[in-house]
């Protein structure tokens, strides 16, 4: 595997081996010395053409724990914001000898354009492209779910997951639908009809407009951020009404199964899609998602750059 652009690039065994590798690498992160020498002398560029502090620092921490040299190339103050083309940026990174580029970009397909082009030869990791995909987020979500609720198996068979909110514009939802269903979970998408894409019929997921009907039956509730710009574009009447039908508050949380967990990819709009009571509750695994993100991203870089999965029990 050279690139990670979409969950659809992964087979089920490959996805599971990334999760297993992450489990092994998490033990490193828990140790006193948090570093492995695996990627010493390799250069990884974080090319962030869109603001995302949390994803960038997660990839940066992952690369550093594998002893790679990390260059952060962010849109603010870089040539990307001055109108330099993706091609010229890629050729610059190639000239600097980047072994891998972790790219966050507002245009859907930007990561694939980099990977398919002859502009650069290194590996490309999609860290979120427009409204397309965010595969590392889905992998860390699956990792978190498996850790909490996996019935001892390597996949997520038998689990019910609800993904709630702006499915239409969500790269997190797209990657999670593909990955969680591939791992055997039953996925239900909950949203107002305006925030579900036309053409969703063939997704490996069911659709519901009724959060209250779904909530008692699921093991995982994954809330999505409502972007500020959706407020003014006729997707729903106002924030209050959205929150009333599709927000997760204490009352709704009370109807969840015992042991069911609440997730959110962050950053949260407290009081809109999720109440503070829920975000800070015992069911919430939101900060743990952040912790797991580093291990999973270490595993991704490990698999792409060190040439294969880490054997379970090695180390």
């Amino acid at each position, binding site marked *: 595997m050279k690139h990670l652009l979409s969950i659809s690039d992964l087979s089920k065994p490959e996805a599971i081996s990334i999760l297993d590798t992450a489990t092994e690498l998490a033990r490193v992160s828990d140790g006193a010395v948090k570093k492995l020498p695996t990627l010493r002398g390799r250069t990884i560029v974080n090319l962030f053409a869109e603001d995302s502090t949390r994803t960038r620092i997660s990839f940066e921490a992952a690369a550093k724990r594998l002893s790679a040299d990390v260059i952060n190339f962010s849109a603010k103050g870089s040539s990307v914001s001055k109108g330099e*083309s993706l*091609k010229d940026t890629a050729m610059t990174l190639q000239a600097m000898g980047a072994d891998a580029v972790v790219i966050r*970009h507002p245009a*859907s397909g930007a990561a694939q*354009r980099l990977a398919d082009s002859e502009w650069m030869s290194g590996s490309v990791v999609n860290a979120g492209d427009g*409204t397309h*995909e965010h595969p590392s987020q889905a992998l860390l979500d699956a990792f978190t779910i498996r850790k909490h609720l996996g019935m001892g198996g390597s996949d997520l068979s038998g689990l019910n997951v609800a993904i709630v909110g702006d499915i239409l514009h969500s790269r997190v939802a797209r990657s999670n639908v593909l990955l969680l269903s591939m791992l055997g979970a039953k996925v239900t998408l909950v949203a107002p009809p305006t925030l579900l894409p036309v*053409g969703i*019929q063939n997704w490996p997921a069911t659709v519901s407009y009724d959060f209250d009907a779904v909530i008692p039956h699921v093991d995982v509730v994954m809330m999505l951020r409502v972007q500020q710009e959706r407020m003014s574009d006729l997707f729903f009447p106002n924030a209050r009404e959205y929150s009333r039908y599709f927000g997760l508050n204490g009352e709704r949380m009370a109807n969840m199964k015992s042991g069911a967990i609440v997730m959110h990819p962050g950053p949260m709009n407290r009081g809109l899609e999720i109440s503070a009571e829920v975000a800070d509750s015992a069911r919430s695994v939101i900060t743990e998602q952040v912790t797991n993100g580093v291990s999973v991203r270490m595993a991704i870089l490990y698999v792409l750059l060190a040439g294969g999965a880490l054997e379970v029990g090695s180390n």
Partner: protein
Amino acid sequence: MTTADFLIKGASLPDGKKADISISNGVIASVGSGFKGEAHTVIDGKDCVVLPGLVDLHTHLREPGREDAETVLSGSSAGVKGGFTAVSAMANTSPVADTAGVVEQVYRLGQEAGLLDVFPIGAVTQGLKGESLSEIGAMADSVARVRVFSDDGNCVSDPLVMRRALEYIKKFGGVIAQHAQDPRMTIGSQMNEGEISARLGLKGWPAVAEEAIIARDVLLADHVKSRLHICHLTTAGGVEIIRWAKARGIDVTAEVTPHHLLLTDDLASSYDPVYKVNPPLRTESDVHALREALADGTIDIVATDHAPHPTESKECEWQEAAFGMLGLETALSIVQKTMIDTGLMNWVQVADRMSIAPARIGGYEKHGQPLVVGSIANLVVINPTKKWTVDRDLVLSKSSNTPYHGHELPGVITHTFFKGKATYSNGIVSSTGGK
């Protein structure tokens, strides 16, 4: 006994009959087996079909303003390579062709290039802004004699502006060529809205945004009894509305592009903007509906929507890229592939859809004439039994944004004749034009 300029020996006419065709003094001098004289140049027409020279009602030549993408001369060269003897230069140049001065400039550049007739299309509204009418009458009365008006690239979306434009052009028998795209429904749209756009996370351009405008405009054309032409129809629903309108006797015609007869929206999965075009590539069922409609005459013509763009406008992220693809050099081959080789149409119908009908809609009397003695010798010779491979580095257009790079296509054009002169023969464009 006179000496003919050219003699095409043993070719097929569109109806399949074998004939020798001689050309003298710019006209067809003889058709049939009776030619007994000498000819300066004899062309072996074995396996070839002779059609009236192709007429494109929808071409972007980019001059004035974007001469880095195409010029009237480079576009004319691409045109004759593709078998065209007339093209219609769309108005979305810079400056916009919304005055007599600009359309006369484009017309004159076409005459100077001399390879084919360039008929300028005038903008419907000033600056293509959709607000106030451009100098339609002045353009109609200019040397360019404009009869087709279009804001192509933009839709004339205001119903009152569209009504007035349709009424105004009745004065001289003009036609409004509408780019049917509801602007509010397609803000930021990137590709056909459906299963593929949902997966790719690219903003959808719904079929209804085209169909709603077509429905409105056929009703307007009916109400004011004027003539409407629908540019680049792409949807099965649009076909149904045109079929209904024609059955009611509404004076509407419609065009389809070669790419919408062949390509589908799943090509966007590569995120390669060479497949980004407006209106977008649609689904397989739309493609089938368009082919059927072209065959049964619901869609009147094939028009290329030849849209050259410089490399940097396509070598980028999908959503940053320009809309459009080249069309002139491949149009006839794509029509052969999709309509002839599938058995949906014969060459008589191709001659109608690509020459006779577009010449009639545009009012281009010297084009689309029948292949009989005395007709102006605007002709194309194609060998449908041969194949060729498209190479974007070898196109005659100044741009290279063809979606068919590397495709093997049927039908090799061997000659194009414009007013009796060979503007294209066996891979070579005449350096002296048709002069």
